């Protein structure tokens, strides 16, 4: 038998807030320097990742091969910059490696890759791949009576992919209560608002109808996120969906709730302004 997963060190809200600030600042710098897209997607998921990496996940960054760690799959992998920042801040790799992001000859692609990047569980980038793979992991843990858990962070636009709904059916049928998805519901997808593209509402009802337990939270409220993620499974025998209502671009007032910052990288002047705002938050 392998060792029981280590309980994570409880973090205070202030510590989580500080971590989220770091993750936002890393993402802004990385994306500005590399001139890539998706800065707003990183900002919206920052608080969710801070709570997961800083408080919830049972990880051992010194032993990335440890097979009893919790698994986090970042399926909304266009937000790769913050995903790399999170595993670096968690201690899986040196912070200075973030400079490799989208840089010629480096290993940190613009959509997260597991190759040469400890702590990144799965390479994604094409939406709708993470949940099926996470479901296979959860099934294996369940059948093997293992204590490790699987978390899949998804985007709202990603819910358009049919492959997710195949996995959503499967996970409920197989009673995978060790599987949790967190949907970063920032209401904006690639070209327009979700409600004007392919409406997801009533999203909670959809998950309930598929046999999942659902909880809606404010995805920027640490106490809300902690409370939901600490009380898993919500009910024995059912997979868990946490619908986190977020604001795209959260933390930089002039990036908030705009499609533009799904694409545009901040220039030097904008970066300085954005960092000042994040630091002051």
């Amino acid at each position: 038998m392998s060792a029981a997963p280590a309980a994570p060190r409880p973090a205070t809200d202030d510590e989580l807030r500080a971590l989220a600030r770091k993750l936002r600042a890393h993402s802004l710098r990385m994306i500005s320097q590399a001139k890539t897209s998706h800065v707003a997607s990183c900002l919206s998921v920052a608080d969710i990742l801070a709570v997961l990496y800083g408080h919830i996940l049972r990880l051992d960054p010194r032993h990335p091969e440890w097979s009893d760690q919790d698994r986090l799959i970042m399926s909304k992998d266009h937000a790769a910059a913050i995903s790399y920042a999170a595993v670096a801040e968690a201690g899986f790799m040196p912070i200075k490696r973030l400079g490799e992001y989208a840089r010629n000859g480096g290993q940190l692609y613009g959509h997260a890759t597991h190759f040469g990047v400890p702590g990144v569980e799965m390479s994604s980038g094409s939406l709708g791949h993470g949940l099926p793979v996470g479901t296979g992991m959860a099934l294996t843990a369940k059948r093997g009576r293992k204590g490790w858990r699987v978390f899949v962070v998804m985007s709202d636009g990603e819910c358009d992919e049919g492959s997710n709904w195949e996995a959503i059916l499967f996970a409920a049928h197989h009673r995978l209560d060790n599987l949790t998805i967190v949907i970063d519901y920032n209401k904006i997808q690639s070209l327009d608002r979700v409600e004007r593209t392919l409406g997801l509402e009533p999203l909670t009802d959809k998950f309930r109808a598929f046999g999942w337990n659902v909880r809606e939270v404010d995805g920027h409220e640490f106490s809300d996120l902690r409370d939901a993620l600490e009380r898993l499974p919500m009910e024995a025998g059912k997979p868990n969906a946490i619908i986190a209502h977020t604001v795209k671009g959260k933390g930089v007032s002039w990036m908030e709730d705009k499609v533009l910052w799904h694409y545009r990288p901040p220039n030097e002047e904008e970066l300085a302004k954005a960092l000042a705002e994040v630091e002051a938050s």
Partner: protein
Amino acid sequence: MRTAFIEALNELAATDDRVCLVVGDLGYSVIEDFAQKYPDQFVNAGVAEQNMIGLAVGMALSGKIVFTYSIANFGTLRCLEQIRNDVCYHRANVKVVAVGGGLAYGNLGVTHHASEDVAIMRALPNMVVVAPGDPIEARLATKAVVARDGPAYLRLGKAGERVVHAQAPGFELGRAITMREGDDIALIASGSMLATADEIAGQLVAKGLSVRLLSMHTVKPLDREAVIRAATETRIVVTLEEHSVEGGLGGAVAEVIAELPPGHAPLKRIGLRPEFNSVVGDQNYLKALHGLDADGVMQTIQALEMAGAAKDV
């Protein structure tokens, strides 16, 4: 072939609980025994091939050796991106098994005709592509892909294929099996066409020709050395496969021969015309329409003679 596969898989599962089978709600009268004996190693993903592959990858990344099982196009093309990104990019220990390779489900319709699968799977990095030639090879191939860590595509026929090998041959992935030595003509066959090639080889030998017969069960990695020897030691090379002539075994052999210095033997690819079938027919009927029955193959080889491709053929 599928019986030989599942028997081999049952044996593997009995001694190694990492060996799992994930089916896409297919395999009636094939998988029941496995499902009953090894319930913790069996999953029916339902009619949901993208999730089937994703599940298999999640299981493989958690230490399992996972076979997926479906009818050829469903288990490959429907979930092609999952196979590319999740299986191949991650080098996940997933073995994609297809039944009904070629025209085995002939009269069920074009949707069930697997005529491009080998070409498509062959193009994927890290993928091993195996199309065993008879039930004996199917059994050996099943064990061989487990012994080799990483992605594999195992293309099976269906049922009732003729046993071509008199006894179990030495079997190694990426190494052709030489079934006859000869230097007039080389027949290189994969999958169900091995039986036809074997029959044709017998007829050509009876006519006084020296025939080399290779079972090229592994299309990727291709046994380049065997192809180069065939192209330089015989006077004509013929590939035979129940798959489009574009991109499969014939394509792979052509890629090797095209880069050889001048003076090598010419190549003829015998396979399916790259088009959708427009009439109903069972496997044998449709194969004959494509010239893949023994008579058709013999006519093609005789036509090569008329064209002077190989003087003595």
